[in-house]
């Protein structure tokens, strides 16, 4: 028994040691595995852990501001209160949105739309419920947040145009990028990111956009952001602030003067080419476009016969009509086909073959020289001059003066117009017809095939006034600007200038009575030059004449003539050129001349010496530091 007991104890001990050995081996295996994982392969797992842990989140840059020439913001960013829903935290998104609808208007259709959006995106990704909320609603919801799980308030930036309609056609607007536009910037995928779609916002997109930053974030296994790590992130690079040559005050003067008509106006500094005014009337408010304009509001704008969305100043093209007469006269003097003294008889019309070409004044102008012909806008005189010049000489001068050419103003968009200066070759290739003398007659008075945008008319005016190759721009020109001379005889330029002055200041000038009988610039001790134009839209037929339709006012609006006016001043020290086109404005003199004069008068009033308007010369376009308007 005792021996058995001892033997059993010994056997137990042997087996216990064996078992302990097995256990020890098992633990050694665990240790070896641990060694392999943590010592031998630690680098690989360390990388995998970093992959797990970090993610980079796109940080949209602040869009560069657009400033007017005085530093006044015309496209800026403001804080926008947004409301997001994080489906993961909301539990049941529908219930969350329905709870939210007690505190803010949220239609059933909108909830459905949001739910569709939520279903399409990962559960942790926030979906925007509302943007640009008013402070009252936003703060009310903030108070209720404990009862609204998954609803997150957020602060973003939204583009805003403080002057709205005043600068709408210059700034254009930003909108969400259209899908598949060929732009591969990953920013475009960022919800809420917007790009310039029209105007300078579009043409200067590259400078304004800036560069996306990357925020390093710590994420959990479902991708939810737990922590931001700004010190290890690339901050976004804000877009560049860009100062434009536009003057908001002049924009206001112009739009008020155009008074809601379908019209446009361009004013530029003839010595620098800087565009001070560029308006298209009626204008529109670009602000609603940023957050997505409603369908009904958009179609109201889009179907408006006055075409508010269309930038008539750069993309509208019109027959320049009589505004071209200065150019034709200059060509004639330069070519020597006439001299300032030669008199031509105007009886009200002139025959060519079996056609009659009428003067706008049925009684005729009697015998007129070049000065009188411009002053009274005698058509017959210019038929004759144009015939002598021929279309090629006439067209050449028109082109030298900037017609038929796309001017790079820093806002060139695919639909910018280059107008048309016809030629024999053009007619043959495009229309398949030979050029006729009648065509030359029509070209002599700016009708027929010739087409120009208001911007081109302003350039032509500037070049006629200065004799230099003025190039327009919306982007400031640093330092002294000196345009090349056109190489035109100064005496000829003076003759044209005097005639243009007489249009406004001579009692027999076509704009004399319209523009306050020679006191066009009112109380200002300055004179201006100008030229009227009436582009024929519709010929009143003999039957209509018989039926009592005599005046433009008797025609429906869309058939009435366009009114045009080009002007510059102060006459003694020319600085500012203006072109105005009023669509279907009836008689050219009244509808376009007054707005053009108003714009010019405002500019001259602020800069009577014909120096340079505003502190732009010293401006560094990128600082944008000077707020307020340094109107001096």
């Amino acid at each position, binding site marked *: 028994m005792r021996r058995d007991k001892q033997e059993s104890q010994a*056997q137990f001990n042997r087996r216990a040691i064996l*078992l302990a050995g097995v*256990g020890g081996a098992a633990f050694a295996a*665990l240790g070896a595995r*641990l060694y392999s994982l943590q010592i031998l392969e630690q680098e690989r797992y360390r990388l*995998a852990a970093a992959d797990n842990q970090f993610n980079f989140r796109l940080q949209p840059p602040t869009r560069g501001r657009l400033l007017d020439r005085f530093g006044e913001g015309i496209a800026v960013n403001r804080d926008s209160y947004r409301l997001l829903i994080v489906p993961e935290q909301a539990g049941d998104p529908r219930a969350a949105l329905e709870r939210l609808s007690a505190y803010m208007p949220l239609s059933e259709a909108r909830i459905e739309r949001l739910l569709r959006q939520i279903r399409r995106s990962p559960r942790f990704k926030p979906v925007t419920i509302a943007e640009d909320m008013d402070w009252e609603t936003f703060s009310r919801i903030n108070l209720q947040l404990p009862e609204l799980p998954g609803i997150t308030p957020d602060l973003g930036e939204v583009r805003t145009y403080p002057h709205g309609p005043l600068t709408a056609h210059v700034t254009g607007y930003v909108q969400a990028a259209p899908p598949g536009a060929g732009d591969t910037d990953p920013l475009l995928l960022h919800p809420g990111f917007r790009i310039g779609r029209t105007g300078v916002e579009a043409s200067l997109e590259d400078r304004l956009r800036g560069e996306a930053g990357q925020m390093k974030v710590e994420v959990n296994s*479902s991708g939810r952001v737990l922590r931001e790590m700004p010190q290890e992130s690339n901050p976004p690079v804000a877009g560049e602030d860009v100062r434009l040559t536009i003057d908001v005050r002049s924009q206001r003067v112009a739009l008020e003067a155009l008074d809601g008509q379908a019209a446009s106006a361009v004013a530029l500094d003839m010595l620098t080419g800087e565009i001070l005014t560029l308006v298209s009337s009626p204008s529109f408010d670009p602000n609603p476009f940023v957050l997505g304009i409603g369908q009904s509001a958009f179609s109201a704008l889009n179907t408006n016969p006055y075409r508010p969305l269309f930038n008539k100043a750069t993309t509208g093209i019109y027959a320049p009509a009589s505004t071209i007469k200065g150019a034709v006269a200059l060509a004639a003097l330069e070519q020597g086909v006439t001299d300032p003294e030669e008199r031509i008889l105007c009886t009200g019309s002139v025959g060519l073959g079996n056609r009659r070409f009428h003067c706008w004044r049925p009684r005729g102008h009697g015998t007129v020289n070049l000065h009188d012909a411009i002053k009274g806008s005698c058509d017959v005189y210019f038929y004759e001059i144009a015939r002598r010049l021929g279309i090629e000489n006439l067209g050449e001068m028109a082109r030298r003066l900037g017609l038929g050419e796309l001017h790079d103003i820093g806002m060139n968009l695919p639909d910018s117009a280059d107008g048309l200066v016809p030629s024999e070759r053009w007619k043959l290739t495009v229309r398949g017809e030979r050029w006729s003398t009648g065509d030359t007659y029509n070209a002599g008075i700016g009708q027929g095939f010739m087409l120009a945008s208001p911007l081109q008319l302003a350039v032509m005016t500037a070049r006629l006034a200065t004799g230099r190759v003025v190039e327009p721009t919306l982007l400031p020109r640093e330092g002294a600007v000196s345009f090349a001379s056109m190489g035109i005889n100064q005496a000829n330029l003076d003759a044209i200038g005097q005639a243009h002055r007489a249009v406004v200041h001579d009692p027999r000038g076509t704009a004399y009575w319209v523009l306050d009988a020679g006191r066009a610039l009112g109380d200002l001790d300055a004179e201006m030059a100008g030229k009227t134009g009436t582009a024929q839209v519709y010929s009143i037929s003999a039957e209509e004449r018989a039926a009592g339709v005599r005046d433009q006012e008797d025609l429906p609006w869309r058939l009435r003539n366009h009114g045009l006016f080009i002007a510059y001043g102060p006459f003694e020290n020319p600085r500012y050129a203006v072109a105005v086109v009023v669509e279907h404005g009836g008689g050219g003199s009244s509808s376009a001349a007054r707005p053009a004069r108003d714009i010019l008068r405002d500019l001259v009033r602020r800069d009577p010496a014909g120096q340079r308007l505003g502190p732009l010369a010293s401006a560094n376009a990128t600082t944008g530091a000077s707020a307020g308007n340094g109107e001096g």
Partner: protein
Amino acid sequence: MSVFNVSAPRDIRSKLYEINWTFVLLVGLIGAIGVAMLYSVESGSWDPYAIRHLIRLTAGLGLMVVVAMFPPRFWMGIAYPAYLGALILLVGVEVMGVTAGGAQRWIDIGPIRMQPSEIMKIAMVLALARYYHDLPEDRVSGLGGLIIPAIMIGAPMALILMQPDLGTSLLLAATGATIVFMAGLSWWVIMGAGIFATGGALIYLNFFIEPYQMARIQTFLNPEEDPMGAGYQILQSQIALGSGGSTGKGFMQGTQASLDFLPEKQTDFIFTILGEEFGFVGGIAVLGFYALLLANCVLIASSCKATFLRLVVMGVATTFALYVFINVGMVMGLLPVVGVPLPLISYGGTVMMTVLFGLGLILGAHVHRSAEPPKGAGLFG
């Protein structure tokens, strides 16, 4: 072994004097590591895990000491009734069990929810130890000495397999086999049983295995195949462990765990947190503490005079060792994912109590190592 203390202590004072403080200290140390890791899991918060773990650990250590005070006769006396009770509860689970995690493992008795399989782990050890204690040594390898232990092990295994819980039933099998082995089963029978068990396992794998169990095994064999699915846990666990490197990221500096990449980090994957934050050094240290504790158990077992106590100690220690091995092997990708906690460190009330109860039996065996209860001695015998 004290020469002056050949007979077993009778009164509580002398029993307390006999307590193996190395053992208690190791248990407390490992439990405290658990508290620290659970504190870290919640990014430095006592709530909800660490504080409860601490309370349970304290209460459990008390329970352990109390259990150690009971004489071997008491445990021998309740061995069979406890086993039968546990068996009835296992049947009850089949009838009225609450399904948790896809398997019926819990039973509701009024406010108490319990896992009969946990009770069975201890009850089976006691019953087997009692059986072999009573059995004359020469009959251990006889036919009669084989059939009854086989039934005692097989019945609860079968019931637990039906839940179905493959892990626990294999754990019971291993524990039971260890006791049978330590009882002195002849090597010939062991070899025969080994062949028999292999055949049985093959049949089970081919005909009776549940799809999810198969999936777990396949996932284990090839975790990277499906990184976001079933293999995800193992992969994430290995990433966390591996990224800990040699000395770890520091206490509460673990990134993978705090970022929820790890599932069940407070229970089954607690060792991963430890490995990530304290690295290879920390992991080896904890494994070392476990090894020391287990070595202590073997020493206690061999110091015991009573067969019952020796077998109880070896049985409980085996269960404990298997827990550690399976859990640590699983989080390191050595073994398939089975829901086995890391004893004393993982969060969980039932397991903590079962483990400390079992460790109380071992401590009690040390206290009563000189006791020599006669064969057939029961509660009152």
